[in-house]
């Protein structure tokens, strides 16, 4: 069996006096879609933030692709996020001042790509996600489902190794949410992207290959691989 792509060991993190993670262990294999479930306040989002290098844990280790990432500096973690990770969050992640295509191109622009090339690459995602004709809209002019699809395009445009999705359908109705999940899973499988999906909805978690449950800041894996 190969080493997991992401491996967290005994991760703890407290916000002030409140412990959010108390020794969480989790392994994510390359190419799998893992759902992290758990009641609200269980620490599932915090675990995702730690895995994605957004938050630095108080103790424990996090390895990504054989490299320890939990004690990296702010600069290195930014670069890691930009080059290796993509993100789809519940809402508010698009830059309201920018058009949809500029938002999608943002990771490429931040990585130093030429503006014209970045926008061209960004635009190529719009038909794939059923967003034709919305390239010049700003986030305020998009419906919830459209905004999430734009966010998905942005999360995948730089061809990341891992896509982190935190309640990506949390602000959507069931039908729209399922469309977004269909596209997310479809694109991730096509690109071979590993997905870490945080959700409290079983129907959304059912899109994953496997689920882990976080209770009281600890993670348990309950089911094996689907295939």
């Amino acid at each position, binding site marked *: 069996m190969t080493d997991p792509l992401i491996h967290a060991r005994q991760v703890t993190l407290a916000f002030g006096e409140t412990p959010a993670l108390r020794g969480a262990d989790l392994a994510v294999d390359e190419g799998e879609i893992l759902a992290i479930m758990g*009641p609200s306040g269980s620490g599932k989002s915090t675990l995702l933030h730690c895995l994605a290098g957004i938050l630095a844990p108080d103790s424990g280790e996090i390895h990504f692709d054989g490299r320890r990432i939990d004690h990296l500096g702010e600069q290195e973690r930014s670069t890691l996020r930009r080059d290796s990770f993509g993100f789809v969050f519940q809402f508010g992640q698009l830059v309201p001042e920018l058009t949809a295509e500029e938002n999608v191109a943002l990771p490429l622009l931040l990585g130093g790509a030429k503006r014209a090339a970045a926008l061209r690459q960004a635009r190529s995602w719009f038909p794939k996600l059923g967003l034709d004709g919305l390239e010049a809209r700003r986030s305020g002019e998009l419906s919830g489902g459209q905004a999430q699809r734009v966010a998905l395009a942005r999360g995948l445009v730089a061809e990341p190794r891992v896509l982190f999705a935190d309640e990506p359908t949390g602000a959507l109705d069931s039908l729209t949410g399922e469309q977004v999940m269909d596209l997310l899973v479809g694109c991730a499988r096509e690109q071979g992207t590993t997905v870490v999906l945080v959700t409290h909805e*079983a*129907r959304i978690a*059912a*899109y994953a290959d496997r*689920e882990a449950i976080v209770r009281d800041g600890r993670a348990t894996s309950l*089911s094996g691989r*689907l295939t």
Partner: protein
Amino acid sequence: MSVPLTLLGLLEREPSHGYDLKRDYDAFFGRGKPLPFGQVYATLGRLARDGKVVVGEPEAGDGPDRKRYVITETGATEFEDWLREPVAAEPHLQTVLFSKVVLALMLGRDAEHYLDTQRAAHLQRMRELTEVKRSGSLVDALLADHGLFHLESDLRWIDLTTARLDALAAEVAKR
């Protein structure tokens, strides 16, 4: 699924042969459990006896065994009534899940482990249904959704019960 009423509904659409009825039933309602021919003809026989269908004139070129069935006024009325009537909203209080949890607590077994296993089984089934939904037709998706929502409500009950397990154990022990 009520087979007689479903067949009545298919006949309300248009007069049909027994073979066509079986084919349509399997396509829309069978879901991997095809209706045996014997059951089709037995059901049609009972419907004819009760005056809900009649056997129509055989058409030219049809074999002697290919009778066309036509719905009667009585049959149509019964079907319409059934279609309008909401299904009784049963809360299914005495489910197997519930019984297992209460019995486990009563006997001091590991109820939490049972719930976790049950949860995993539910999610596994939900994953299968989601896959059906993603790869199948809209009709498949519709049925898969029905199953998914039911499984999801079970899951929510499982989650809630897991969270309340300690209190529940105390309550069961008291009696």
